[in-house]
C-alpha cells in the first residue's frame, strides 16, 4: 500500500485533519471538498447548510445527508389488507418525483437516522439555507455518494412495508436524477439526538 498525500484542489495546500471525514476542509483556504474513493482524491462539491427551525439547549451539530432526487414509478402493486387503515390514517404515498433524505453520518445511531430519513422524505420540508455552520460542530460524513441511491431505494421499500397492509408484490422503477449534500442541524444530549428542523 502507498500513502498518497491529499492536497486542496483549490489552493494546493496539504490537507490536515484529525478525523476521517469525506467532506474535508482545507485549513488554509477554508473550502470543503468531497473525497471520493474511486478517484482517490478531493473534488469540488456544492452543499447546503440548513438553519435550525427548532431551538435547542443541547449541543448543536450539523448532520450531513445525501439528498437523492428520484422518481419511484410503481407499475403494479399487490397489498394484502390495510385499505381501511390507510384510509383512516390518510396514509401518504411515497410516489412521484421527490427528495429522498439519507443520513450520511455513521455517528448518528440508526434508531434516530432511520426515523429522520423517513420523516424528512415524507414531509419534504422547506428548508432555509444559512451561510455557515454558526458555531455548530460538523458531523463526519461517512457514506459514499455511490451508495446513496441504493439507500434511497431501500427507504422507499421500507415505507411500502411499514404502512398498513402487507406488501405481496411490487413492480417498480426507481430513477435517480441528482444527488447532493445537505447539512441539517440536530441537537445532541448524551446518547440522544433530536433533529432541529
Amino acid at each position, binding site marked *: 500500500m*502507498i*500513502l498518497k498525500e491529499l492536497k486542496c484542489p483549490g489552493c494546493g495546500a496539504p490537507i490536515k*485533519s484529525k478525523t476521517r471525514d469525506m467532506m*474535508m476542509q482545507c485549513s488554509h483556504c477554508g473550502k470543503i471538498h468531497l473525497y471520493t474513493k474511486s478517484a482517490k482524491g478531493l473534488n469540488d462539491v456544492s452543499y447546503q447548510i440548513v438553519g435550525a427551525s427548532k431551538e435547542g439547549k443541547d449541543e448543536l451539530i450539523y448532520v450531513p445527508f445525501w439528498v437523492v432526487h428520484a422518481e419511484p414509478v410503481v407499475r403494479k402493486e399487490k397489498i394484502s389488507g390495510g385499505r381501511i387503515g390507510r384510509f383512516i390514517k390518510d396514509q401518504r404515498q411515497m410516489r412521484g418525483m421527490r427528495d429522498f433524505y439519507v443520513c450520511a453520518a455513521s455517528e448518528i445511531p440508526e434508531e434516530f437516522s432511520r426515523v429522520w430519513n423517513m420523516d424528512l422524505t415524507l414531509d419534504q420540508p422547506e428548508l432555509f439555507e444559512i451561510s455557515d455552520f454558526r458555531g455548530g460542530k460538523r458531523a463526519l460524513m461517512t457514506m459514499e455518494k455511490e451508495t446513496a441511491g441504493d439507500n434511497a431505494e431501500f427507504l422507499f421499500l421500507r415505507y411500502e412495508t411499514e404502512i398498513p397492509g402487507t406488501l*405481496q408484490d411490487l413492480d417498480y422503477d426507481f430513477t435517480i436524477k441528482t444527488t447532493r449534500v445537505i447539512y441539517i442541524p440536530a441537537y445532541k444530549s448524551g446518547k440522544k439526538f433530536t433533529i432541529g428542523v
Partner: protein
Amino acid sequence: MSETTKLLVTMTCPYCGGQVLCEEGESLAICTYCDSVFSLDAEEGAAQVMYKLAVTKDKAEKTVRGWMANGRKAENLSKDAEIAEIYPIYLPFWRLIARGKACVCGYDEDKDKDGHTRKTPREVLINREYVYNDIACNPGDLGINSIRIPNNAQAVSFDDGEIATFTSTLSKDDSYRSGCEAIIAEAIHDGKQSIDKITFSKGFCFPKGFTKVYYPFWIVRYTYQDRSYFATVDGITEEIVSGRAPGNVKRQGLYAGGGGTIAGSMAGIGIGFVSMGEETAGFAIPLLFVAAILIWYSYQQFRYGDEVLQGSLKGSGIQEGAKIGKVDTVVTGTHDYFS
C-alpha cells in the same frame, strides 16, 4: 460490538515519521502526529493485508497428530504415520465486509381445524452486516475455499518478498461482484427463513471494506502404508482446516457385516409380520423403513470409509468436520423488521 472487527495496519508517515493507522475498508488514513491526510493507494486497487503466523512448526505437527487419533481414521494412524514435510504458506483471499439489506414478502400457509388452507401475508426487512471471504488463487488439492479470521489475528502490511504464497487467479473485480451477489443472496435468504412462500424479494449490498488478505497455514504432508496424505493447520487458531486421511478398515468391515446383519434381521422380522396377517402388517412398515435406512448408511460407510476428508475436498470419502462458508453473518447490530 455493533460492527465487524476491522483489520488495522500501521504505516509510517512519509513527512514526520509518525504513526499512520490504516483501517480495513477506509481509503483515508491520518497521521496521528502531524494530522496529514493520505489516500491509500493499493497496487491492485484494494488494500492488501497479511496476518502474522502465530503457530510454530512443532505445534502444527502436534495438532495434526491429535487430529489423526480422532474420528473415523485408521487405527494407529497417529503412531504409524510418517511426516514427509511441514511448511508454512500464505494463501490469498478476497474479503468483503458489507451491510446487506433485503425486502422479502410472501405468506405463511397452514391448515385450519376444518382442513382449509389459510394464507397469512408476511413482510420482512433484513438489515445486517455480512463478511464474505473467498480464496483468490487455485488452492489445488488443499481443500480451502474460505477463512474465518479470529479476533486475536495480528495484521501487518503486506510484503510479498517475505512470504511463500500462491499467485492470485481470481480478479478483484470478479471477486467484488461475486461478494456483493453472495451478500445480497444471503440477506434475501435470511428474509426467506421465516416465510413459507415468497412473492417478492429485492436485495442491496452496501460495501464497507474490500481487502486482499494473506492468511497463514501450515501444510503437513505425511505417508501411511506407502500412500500420501495431508492436513492443513490454521496458522493462527491452530485448528485443522482441511485434510485427507486413511479410513478405518475394521470400521468398514463392521458396517459391512454388522450393519448388513442387523438390517437383514429387521427386514426379516418385518416380512414375518406381513406374512402373519393384516393385523400385524402395520408393524412391518417402520421396521422395513429403519432397515432400509440402516442398509443405506452401512453401505455409505463401507463404500467410502477407506478415506476420511475434511474441509472442501473433492473426491470420495467420509466427510468430517464443518466446512467454512463464504458468507458469515454478524449477528449483532442488525436492524431487521418482521411483520
